[in-house]
């Protein structure tokens, strides 16, 4: 099976709309979480979220959108997609080739347009311009149509692990000979829908989130997008290569719709399977980018899974403390952060941590550190028990 390399990166997050802005902010330990402003909601002015403070209309103008039906989710995805293809120096011919795949992922689709969807679904309108923009597929289809892409096009939704699975699917298309290049990633925008959904489950924190802290109070929702250009070793040539995707695994916890089991079987199996795929021993993992949402359930379960798998748990951190939880985009955004760990040979501190969780005693990285890093494991776990882990290695 062919080796799979990352040759392009595009990212937009609460830390900035370029890779370099994200890098600088991580290095400085900046937190991009702030009070909700841009959504017309009772939570505005109160709830801490990872919000990109750019109005949707401004994105439309910047990206010169003339098509109708573009949602904020599609705009974030398109922004990251454009940066990724430019970074990988792909020509129009490369992008429209039959062996170039596009695999997107998101969990809210166009449901960020709560008011429009409410009217359209309840027949209280003559039909908005977004009738074909509510499903998850619409986000990927917007990019496909804009570029006239002809290869395998797909959209995955496994909740909070969606874009870890789109990265995995793209890599497998390459390794199964169904594509030589796959542009993979995910996006999600903040939505009244998800804010109220997570609120109804009592897992939103009213303070800035504190991953792996004993006093953590829940997660902060966020928005963003990231895309990676994956290329097979056969076509990569002399191109700049950020990292190699060496391991991946998807497993299900098969326990509960919205929480992880006591033994954390799903997270354990995902991490173990990724190591097996990469042909690595646990002690070869230099750093773990955890899922680390800061919910009571996730952080304890993830810690237990790490303790089960690793004799000595490697340094780990949660970038959710910098940006919050971007749901369907999290797997891809954190893949980018994991790749930065490799290219820069450094790890970034987990913010807002004070005391360890009593039952596990694990302490995340609390200071920016330069160190040798060959392999980074990145975790993404979602509702419905959908757990996925990726391993990126130094190219």
């Amino acid at each position, binding site marked *: 099976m062919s080796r799979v390399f990352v040759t392009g990166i595009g990212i937009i997050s609460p830390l900035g709309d370029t890779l370099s802005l994200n890098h600088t902010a991580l290095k400085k330990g900046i937190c991009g979480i702030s009070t909700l402003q841009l959504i017309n909601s*009772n939570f505005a002015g109160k709830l801490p979220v990872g919000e990109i403070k750019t109005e949707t209309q401004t994105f439309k103008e910047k990206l010169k959108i003339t098509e109708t039906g573009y949602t904020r989710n599609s705009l974030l995805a398109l922004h990251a997609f454009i940066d990724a293809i430019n970074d990988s120096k792909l020509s129009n011919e490369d992008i429209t080739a039959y062996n170039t795949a596009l695999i997107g992922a998101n969990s809210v689709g166009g449901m960020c347009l709560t008011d429009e969807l409410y009217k359209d679904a309840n027949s209280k309108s003559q039909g908005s311009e977004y009738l074909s923009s509510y499903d998850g597929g619409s986000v990927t289809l917007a990019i496909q149509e804009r570029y006239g892409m002809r290869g395998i*096009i797909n959209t*995955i939704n496994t909740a909070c692990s969606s874009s870890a699975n789109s990265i995995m699917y793209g890599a497998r298309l390459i390794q199964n000979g169904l594509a030589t290049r796959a542009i993979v990633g995910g996006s999600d925008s903040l939505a*009244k829908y998800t804010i109220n*959904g997570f609120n109804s489950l009592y897992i939103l924190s009213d303070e800035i989130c504190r991953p792996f802290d004993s006093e953590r109070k829940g997660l902060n929702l966020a928005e963003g997008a990231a895309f990676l250009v994956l290329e097979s070793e056969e076509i990569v040539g002399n191109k700049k290569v950020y990292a190699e995707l060496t391991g991946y695994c998807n497993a299900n916890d*098969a326990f509960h719709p919205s929480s992880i089991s006591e033994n954390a*079987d799903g997270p354990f199996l995902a991490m173990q399977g990724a190591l097996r795929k990469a042909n690595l021993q646990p002690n070869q993992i230099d750093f773990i980018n955890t899922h680390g949402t800061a919910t009571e359930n996730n952080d304890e379960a993830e810690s237990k899974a790490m303790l089960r798998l690793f004799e000595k748990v490697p340094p780990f951190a949660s970038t959710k403390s910098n940006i919050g939880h971007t749901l369907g985009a999290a797997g891809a955004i954190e893949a980018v952060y994991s790749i930065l760990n490799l290219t820069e040979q450094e790890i970034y501190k987990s913010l807002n941590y004070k005391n360890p969780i009593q039952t596990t005693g694990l302490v995340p990285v609390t200071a920016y550190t330069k160190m040798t890093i060959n392999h980074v494991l990145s975790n993404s776990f979602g509702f419905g028990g959908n757990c996925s882990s990726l391993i990126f290695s130094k190219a």
Partner: protein
Amino acid sequence: MFYIHQTVCVSAQKTNGLIDLDDIQPIKDNKLQAIEPNYDAIPPAMYRRMGRAVRLASGAALPLLNTLTFNGIVIGTANGGLEDCIKFLNQIVDYNEGKLTPTNFVQSTTNAIASQLAFFSSNKGYNNTHVHRGLAFENAALDVAMMLNEFPDNSYLLGGVDEISAYQYNIESLAGSYKKESISSAEDLYNSKTTGSIPGDGCTMFAVNKQKTGATAKLKAIGTIHTDKVEEVTQYLTNFINKNLGESSLSLFLSGENGDSRHLPYYSACQNIVPNIAVERFKHLCGEYATASAFALWLACHKIQHNNLKNVLIYNNFRGKQHSFMLVENA
């Protein structure tokens, strides 16, 4: 690619339990809603929370999950539990973002279907949900084909499911997806010169692996293309046939024609690529929905087995933009 063993098809027709495709079930109120399967095997504590899509999928999958062992579950669904989604949305508006009940929210995530099936069977293996609208099922099938290439001894549960709810109907009606005139028969549907089709829903589950012994049929190849240009679709089909069929002949062309005048040119042009081949249509049986191709794959398997056909080529397109070809062969 892989062999198809047991299947369960929940549709508007008598495709589940005692199969009788000669007794065609009528189109009611311009819709073809699936006949709900027996739900006795679903624990009441779980059943009470299920929306239509999860219910249909559970009813279809449980007979397979209870008798076979799978290494993973892969589902294609464009919308999952959209009804729950709008119910939750309505709560947000009606209760002004106050205290809302979480069940609709939890059930509305599209992966609730594949994960519910994993809970039923304590299946901790590969679990994925493809939501790419009209190609959600094809991408799920391709996923399984890759899994079986990577793990040839494994078996997977592959499914396609979508529900039609009042909300979905409202949105799609506004978008002009459905016919306004009354349609009550296949003739009405296919002779219609207007735009739009008739909505349907359903769920089809396939137990698949690499073992030829005992198989019903073989899915030989899948091809997908996104375009609105007829010539690009026919060019793709020509290449698909050259690559996967070679010199052998086709027994049947199963066409996804749906009575929508906007989509007819694609079906006619593809039919012309394979002239003098028997053509059958299936949307008068299952209606139009994003994962109707899963129904078509079931029908192809059924026809191969019962009419002793050598092979079937399925062509389907969704909204004239997402096109798929599946070549199914006698095992």
